[in-house]
């Protein structure tokens, strides 16, 4: 039985029915990891011993009737910026190469409560800064559809691990598209919830006001189930919100009749690859055929999202990453002369170039004399972008958009031109600036056979609507497994 080819919910059912077990599922996952991960490098750390021990316990608890949830016994991968007690958490950085947290992130605690087996930690762009998963200190992740291509980023390891069936599902984090864009590149489904839905406690912060943890899975139903498991109002995270319970099973209905869909005209113009455009419009058409009402509109302000995002995210990052100084934990340079030399060398040697670039950018925009011109202006722009979305959601239930201008670029292509790489985030970052939920579902492939996903954006706390639209679209297609998954 190919347990890893099942969706998380299918596998969960089989485990609960006794057809298979949490231990068998975890063993198969590890056997696939051993076979494939030297090639794709989805994982930074695997915890086979811990996972199998946990799976045995889970099996016992399922048999005793203690664990009855849909994800009990299902093996999952966790992005390596989520703290896991006793398992090193690197953020893809030399800075945290040997860092073992003393506590577990709340989202992971919630998964563990649901009986999920944590297999290990997935590779990522260093400190989640990047769009390709190439900036990891531990080497780049390869796209399971084509090793010459990147999986996207920064949750590239999580998305590639799901696509290559090295886990049943994964957790990622999304600050500017880091779940939605690699989900598109890897042909999987990834959801970024409304800001505040999932506790950020234990997520190593990049841009605190933008970061949100979310699921990456094979399909929409899995995403909904994982979202239900990880959402919580956490008293340890002041920005987490108390939401009325989401009726996610009701959302998973093939019914978009009368659902109002808007496509921002601004998203379909210059810069968008023709094949990707065709995929997006094709998916929109499919939904229209199912009874949705489709309309193009002007979202406006689109061109300001990138500068606003890179100012706010870098500013927050410059402060969030200040704690990595070689004093308390993490990398410390071998030779230094006094405190300042230790700070400088530890940080120069511990961080990679993309992280340093953003720290410098962020420090600059916050420094006195520049704060008003850059940071404050970015905050105002952010408020305007929120308002533009607010206006759009008066007319539409769901906004359709690409997740990236192209399918996955080749390895090594993007980093040479960071500005171009930043521009590639144009369709995803506005969603983070406005705190909205967004989901990417596969909707086709480009001329090279690389997957393309469509992004569906909802108003705050309207996850049900985007899940319904995504689920309906999903029913019009069959899930395409990548070549690596079939190995």
């Amino acid at each position, binding site marked *: 039985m190919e347990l890893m080819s099942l969706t998380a919910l299918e596998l969960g059912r089989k485990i609960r029915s006794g057809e298979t077990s949490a231990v068998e599922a975890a063993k198969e996952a590890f056997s696939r990891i051993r076979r494939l991960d030297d090639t794709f490098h989805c994982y930074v750390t695997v915890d086979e011993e811990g996972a199998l021990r946990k799976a045995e316990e889970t099996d016992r608890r399922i048999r005793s009737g203690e664990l009855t949830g849909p994800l009990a016994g299902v093996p999952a991968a966790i992005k390596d*910026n*989520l*703290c896991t007690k006793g398992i090193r*958490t690197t*953020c893809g950085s030399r800075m*945290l190469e040997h*860092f073992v*947290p*003393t*506590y577990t*992130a709340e989202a992971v605690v919630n998964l563990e409560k649901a009986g999920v087996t944590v297999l290990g930690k997935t590779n990522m762009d260093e400190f989640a800064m990047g769009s390709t998963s190439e900036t990891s200190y531990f080497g780049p992740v390869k796209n399971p559809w084509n090793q010459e291509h990147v999986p996207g980023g920064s949750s590239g390891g999580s998305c590639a691990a799901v696509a290559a069936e090295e886990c049943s599902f994964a957790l990622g984090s999304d600050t500017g598209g880091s779940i939605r864009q690699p989900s598109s590149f890897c042909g999987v489904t990834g959801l970024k919830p409304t800001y505040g839905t999932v506790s*950020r*406690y*234990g*997520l*190593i*912060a990049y*841009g*605190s*006001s933008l970061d949100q943890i979310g699921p990456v899975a094979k399909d929409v139903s899995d995403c909904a189930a994982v979202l239900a498991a990880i959402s919580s109002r956490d*008293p*340890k*995270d*002041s*920005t987490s919100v108390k939401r009325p319970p989401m009726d996610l099973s009701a959302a998973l209905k093939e019914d978009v009749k009368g659902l109002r869909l808007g496509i921002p005209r601004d998203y379909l113009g210059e810069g968008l690859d023709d094949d990707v455009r065709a995929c997006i419009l094709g998916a929109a058409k499919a939904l229209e055929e199912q009874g949705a009402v489709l309309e193009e509109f002007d979202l406006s302000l689109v061109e300001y999202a990138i500068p606003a995002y890179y100012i706010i995210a870098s*500013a*927050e990052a*410059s*402060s969030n990453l*200040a*704690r*990595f*100084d070689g*004093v*308390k*934990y993490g990398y410390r340079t071998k030779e230094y002369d006094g*405190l300042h030399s230790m*700070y400088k060398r530890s940080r120069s040697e511990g961080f990679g170039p993309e992280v340093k670039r953003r720290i410098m950018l962020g*420090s600059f925009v*916050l*420094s*006195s004399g520049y*704060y008003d011109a850059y*940071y404050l202006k970015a905050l105002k722009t952010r408020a305007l972008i929120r308002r533009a979305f607010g206006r759009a959601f008066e007319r539409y239930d769901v906004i359709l958009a690409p997740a990236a201008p192209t399918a996955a670029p080749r390895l090594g292509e993007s980093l040479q031109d960071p500005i171009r790489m930043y521009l590639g985030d144009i369709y995803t970052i506005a969603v983070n600036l406005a705190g909205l939920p967004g989901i990417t579902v596969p909707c086709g492939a480009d001329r090279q056979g690389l997957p393309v996903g469509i992004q569906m954006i909802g108003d705050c706390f309207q996850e049900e609507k985007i899940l319904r639209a995504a689920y309906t679209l999903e029913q019009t297609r069959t899930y395409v497994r990548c070549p690596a998954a079939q190995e």
Partner: protein
Amino acid sequence: MNRQYETVIGLEVHVELATETKIFCGCSTRFGGAPNTHTCPVCTGMPGALPVLNRQVVEYAAAVGLATGCTINQCCRFDRKNYFYPDNPQNYQISQLYEPICRDGHIDIDTPSGIKRIGIHEIHMEEDAGKLIHDEWEDCSLVDFNRSGVPLIEIVSEPDMSSAEEVIAYLEKLRLIIRYLGASDCRLQEGSMRADVNLSVRKAGSRELGTRTEMKNLNSFKAIARAIEGERDRQIELLEMGRQVVQETRRWDDNKEASHAMRSKEDARDYRYFPEPDLVPVLISDEWLERIRAGQPELRTQKLIRYKKEFDIPDYDAQIITSEKKLADLFEAASAICKKPKKVSNWLMGETMRLLKEREMEADELSFSPEHLAELIRLTGEGVINGSVAKEVFLKIFLEDVDPVKYVEDHGLKTVNDEGALQETVEKVLADNPQSVADYRSGKEKALGFLVGQTMKAMKGKADPQAVNRMLKERI
């Protein structure tokens, strides 16, 4: 020469709040634990940890604001102040810059020329840093994060003070208010109150402010006074020599009675303040603010007015008693029970103050109950015990808060009013001391005192001295 100049002083006062737990996590604020035992991922700046605001901090800060006539900002926010230093685990301090909780308040101080109003620019909430311990033997530094995250408020005055006396008066008044509110014990020596002095001088009558310096490391009112005088003289001397005052931060060395420059404006840090994204704005609803207002205790100024009306005690006593909330509370409670405010006042002004001084204790360390003091006053008033026994019993109350009724009973300290027993003793004393009797008869008044003493001694102090006196005179 000094008369040609006037001094302009503003203060930044940090006060450690008396909360049980830290400002952004549940760790204890207790002083003196083994290093790094009152810590958690939040107050040690572990990756992924997030701050959660302690509401008690908001209540204390707002209470101090209300008591100093501030406007309370009902939607205040926190900001990050970024700077690298190992005692600061995140390398930023969570503080308030853009929207502090209190603004535009004042404190009225008494000066020789009358009441002077000192403006309060703002009060903001922030977290304290850890403590660096330099290990000379190992040639390394260690960090203790127990203090990291202890809540502070910073009270920033307007530059409205012009002398050391005014500064001390302001600080004493501020300290008293905060102690009355129970928001802090405000001990300078222990660092729960810290004052930084901003000082500049200018030609008398000039309207322009001179260049100021900031003085740190002031651990007592005396040090503050000395530092102010020293810095004023230093600045005037510079100006008289035709030189400039440099804007800088200086560290006061109270042993040398001199200061030295710590850092100048050129290497002043750029703190890159920005709104703290991990905390939501603090919304203080009208109801919450009203609850805080309703919970405000009566402050000293109001108490003094009321005491004048309600209690027949001298102004001097009222001043002393209200100088500490603990004393005022004891006074009011004991007076309410025994209805003898003057007697209560006497015990507080006399024995209590004497014992506090003798034992180098602060009034807030008093632990006896007003009931026991009231009971002691009743026992004395009813003549159950005499004055010297009362003092002995009070010491026990002061130290162990004993129940005086029980204590007097258990130790057999009641005044003996048994005429027969007393008469017998008097007869015996007279018989044993014929010389003193003769002396008294020949007009030596002193001799009576001796005989009274002998009788009291024989009675083990439990006789009523007046009765002894009377009886001796009758017999001789």
